[in-house]
């Protein structure tokens, strides 16, 4: 699935990283606990979260993720946007809640792939 398709499915606003919207992604995870995200290493490319602080961007960077979707209309701070730009990570924000956003992506073919290393 292309990142642009995620934007359409979630009716999301792209905050930064427009140039990477045609990047293909194959799996995603949703969590507000960054250590739980870090416990799973199997190429999740997309992170859905309701958490807003700079560690969200750093966690995604450590995991080689390419897109972060903020649910419940959460908006990243300017510092976070700057960090994401430096790493080429796409940030977007959707009004949808976590459960609905994950469900929409999952049923459209973006699987969890939550294999523990």
């Amino acid at each position, binding site marked *: 699935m292309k990142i642009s398709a995620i934007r359409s499915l979630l009716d999301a606003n792209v905050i930064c990283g427009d140039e990477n919207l045609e990047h293909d992604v194959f799996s995603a995870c949703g969590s*507000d*606990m*960054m*250590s*739980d995200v*870090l*416990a799973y*290493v199997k190429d999740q490319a997309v992170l859905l*979260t309701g*958490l807003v*602080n*700079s*560690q*969200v961007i*750093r*966690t995604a*960077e*450590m*995991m*080689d993720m390419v897109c972060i979707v903020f649910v419940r209309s959460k908006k990243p701070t300017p*510092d976070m946007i700057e960090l994401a730009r430096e790493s080429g990570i796409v940030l977007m924000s959707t009004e949808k809640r976590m459960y609905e956003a994950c469900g929409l992506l999952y049923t459209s073919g973006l699987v969890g792939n939550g294999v523990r*290393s």
Partner: protein
Amino acid sequence: MSESLRFHFNVDGSNFTTAGQASVQVKKNLRELGIPADVIRRVSIAMYEGEINMVIHAHGGEADVVVYEDRIEIILNDHGPGIPNIELAMKEGYSTAPDNIRSLGFGAGMGLPNMKRYTDKMDIETELGKGTKITMCVNF
């Protein structure tokens, strides 16, 4: 085997916002050295969890990353309170982090288990009231 390259960082313990900067820098440095991507990911995740731990529990510390021909060593040194019960601290889900840290997405009791999971070897030396030294090794 001789040491080929060493990166040294001071981890600022007063600011949770900047925690992880050293790990981001290590990731960049290792990429430039042409280290395999999966090795870089394991090193940077283990070091990131360690950095976060140092900020949450030990008011910061020092981090060293040493690149050898066949492995990467990560040495984390702090002068914090020490770990009273290592076996308990290694259990997934056990955490002594305060509630404000949980609201920031950490303190789930996964830090040390994640560090062990992503490395080939992990040693913890700790003394109550003196500090903790964690040495981790990732083989190529």
